[in-house]
């Protein structure tokens, strides 16, 4: 049974308090028991306690599956990109390197890539994913679009990302301020901006002529 179309996942990093409840909850998921698939990033650890949780965004054009040489990563009809299929995965790490969101995790002991599958055992029967159930500040939320608009009057969901020439729509939404002009998150454009709070611009291409071709 596929996951319900009407229920969607919303990530609001601004609400994250860094409690790691999602990481603990994720470990309980039956599809990858004992392994957390959530990445909790410190945005700028030296200057801020702000954290940002990252779950799989379930792209409509999943780069992890595009780069898989073993044809192991599949997307079910409800738009959820599943963990690599065990008989096929060759543990080559391509997907880990390719995913722009850093989602796939290589389990070297099992020679298997495992990734967030939105708790498929739960969402496919209409339950919330574990992380969204556990998150006390609902930085990770799972519900209908209408519910989210009612509960978060100052935020709006965005699910379009721009990577250079490639536009990616995701099943998971990211919340941005409602009055922000943003409709598309242009990821590569932000790469050359100075990192928040950093005194040094850690642009590896800086100072090289022609963007580092020399």
């Amino acid at each position: 049974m596929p996951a319900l179309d009407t229920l969607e996942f919303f990530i609001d990093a601004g609400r994250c308090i860094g409690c790691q409840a999602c990481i603990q909850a994720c470990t309980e998921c039956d599809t990858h028991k004992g392994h957390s698939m959530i990445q909790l990033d410190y945005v700028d650890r030296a200057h801020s306690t702000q954290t940002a949780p990252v779950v799989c965004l379930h792209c409509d054009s999943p780069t992890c599956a595009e780069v898989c040489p073993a044809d192991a990563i599949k997307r079910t009809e409800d738009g959820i990109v599943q963990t690599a299929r065990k008989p096929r995965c060759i543990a080559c790490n391509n997907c880990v390197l390719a995913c722009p969101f850093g989602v796939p995790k290589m389990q070297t002991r099992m020679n298997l890539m495992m990734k967030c599958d939105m708790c498929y055992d739960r969402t496919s029967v209409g339950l919330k994913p574990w992380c969204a159930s556990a998150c006390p500040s609902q930085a990770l939320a799972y519900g209908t679009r209408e519910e989210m608009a009612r509960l978060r009057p100052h935020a709006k969901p965005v699910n379009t990302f721009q990577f250079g020439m490639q536009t990616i729509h995701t099943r998971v939404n990211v919340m941005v301020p409602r009055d922000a002009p943003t409709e598309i998150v242009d990821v590569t454009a932000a790469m050359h901006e100075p990192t928040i709070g950093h005194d040094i611009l850690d642009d590896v291409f800086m100072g090289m002529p022609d963007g580092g071709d020399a």
Partner: protein
Amino acid sequence: MISRQAGGEGPRDLEHATVPPDGRPLAEQPKWRRDFPIDWALDDYVSRRELVKFVVLTSAALTAGQFWIVLKNAFNRRPPPLAGAPIATVDELSVGGAKTFTYPAGSTPRLLVRTGATAFVAYDQQCTHLQCPVVPAVAQRRLHCPCHDGWFDLETGRPVAGPPQRALPRVLVEVRDGMVYATGVEDSAS
């Protein structure tokens, strides 16, 4: 779910939901993209690993089964040999005569035929085709099954004509002191 991407083009084909990176329709995509689809529902490819796993496990199961049969036979108790039993007197039958008997008691009917002065043969009376009773045709040195016109050799019990494929189970007989004794039953060999 993804319907909002479709931009009002009607319901989306959920099985073909994955969009190639260049965004062009599937018909314009290279063939390998149709051969190795990302959509789970379209993926019917059996990988080498899956095939090898299936073959190895099936072969292992067959091998284990063979060993199991061998062990089972090795530990099985064989039934004790049958005791001999008198079934007729020599004088009771003229040469070419026949009678039915049961051996061991309660068995299916067996057929005893006197083929010569001291020669007796005995077989199970059930035809090995469909269990009709066979009748002796001593003049032709055969046994006849009238149901489907099956013929067996009188000396060996082997099928010679008609539908039966297996020989009649033979009852071993022994003539001692004017008595005919049954001493054992041979399994029907093909």
